[in-house]
């Protein structure tokens, strides 16, 4: 699923280089527990999380993930935005819960 389509399906605000919007991403993992992400999310491009600290970016970076979706209407801190931009990680914010965002993306074919 492209970055553009992901953003549309979950009505997300996107912080990304516009050139990347048609990039295709595969696989996703949702958790607020970064240790679990590190254990179970290898080879997936998208992280859905409600956690708000810079370690979400480091965790995604370590796993070579391409996109972080911040759920439940939370707003990325300037520190998170800067770190994501530095590491070429696309950032999104959605008002949806993790359950709803995951459901819509899965239904659309992401990760299945």
């Amino acid at each position, binding site marked *: 699923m492209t970055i553009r389509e992901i953003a549309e399906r979950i009505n997300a605000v996107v912080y990304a280089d516009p050139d990347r919007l048609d990039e295709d991403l595969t696989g996703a993992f949702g958790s*607020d*527990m970064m*240790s679990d992400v590190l254990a179970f999310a290898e080879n997936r491009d998208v992280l859905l999380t409600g956690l708000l*600290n810079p*370690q979400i970016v480091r965790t995604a970076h*370590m796993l070579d993930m391409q996109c972080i979706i911040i759920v439940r209407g939370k707003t990325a801190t300037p*520190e998170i935005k800067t770190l994501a931009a530095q590491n070429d990680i696309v950032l999104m914010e959605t008002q949806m819960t993790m359950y709803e965002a995951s459901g819509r993306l899965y239904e659309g074919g992401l990760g299945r």
Partner: protein
Amino acid sequence: MTGDALHFHYDVDGNNFTSAGEASVQVKRTLRQMGYHPDLIRRISVAMYEGEINMVIHAKGGDADVYVTPDCITVILKDVGPGIKDINLAMQEGYSTAPDNIRSLGFGAGMGLPNMKRYSDELKIDSVVGVGTTIEMKFKSA
């Protein structure tokens, strides 16, 4: 470790949770520049990141040393923290002694050491209560 290994040293700052992982980021960058396979780099950086987080949570930081030889990359993490009382217990998924405030930061789920074992080819833990912990991880690159 001596001989022809390339040696990289990093100080892990134990007073700043926000910066935890910076050494792993640098190692990831260095190994990329050296042309290693992305899968190997990912395993090394995830395992080292978990170790770095542990040092910050439990031991007020420490030293990280990475040695690169043609067939193996070795990561040694050394701290002078409280030590691990029961290593077998600490290796169990879900067992954690991290304080609650660490869980609210997304860590302390008891997956750190199991993840380090999962991603490395060899894991050695040398720990003395009240003295400190040294962790050695080996990753075969050939």
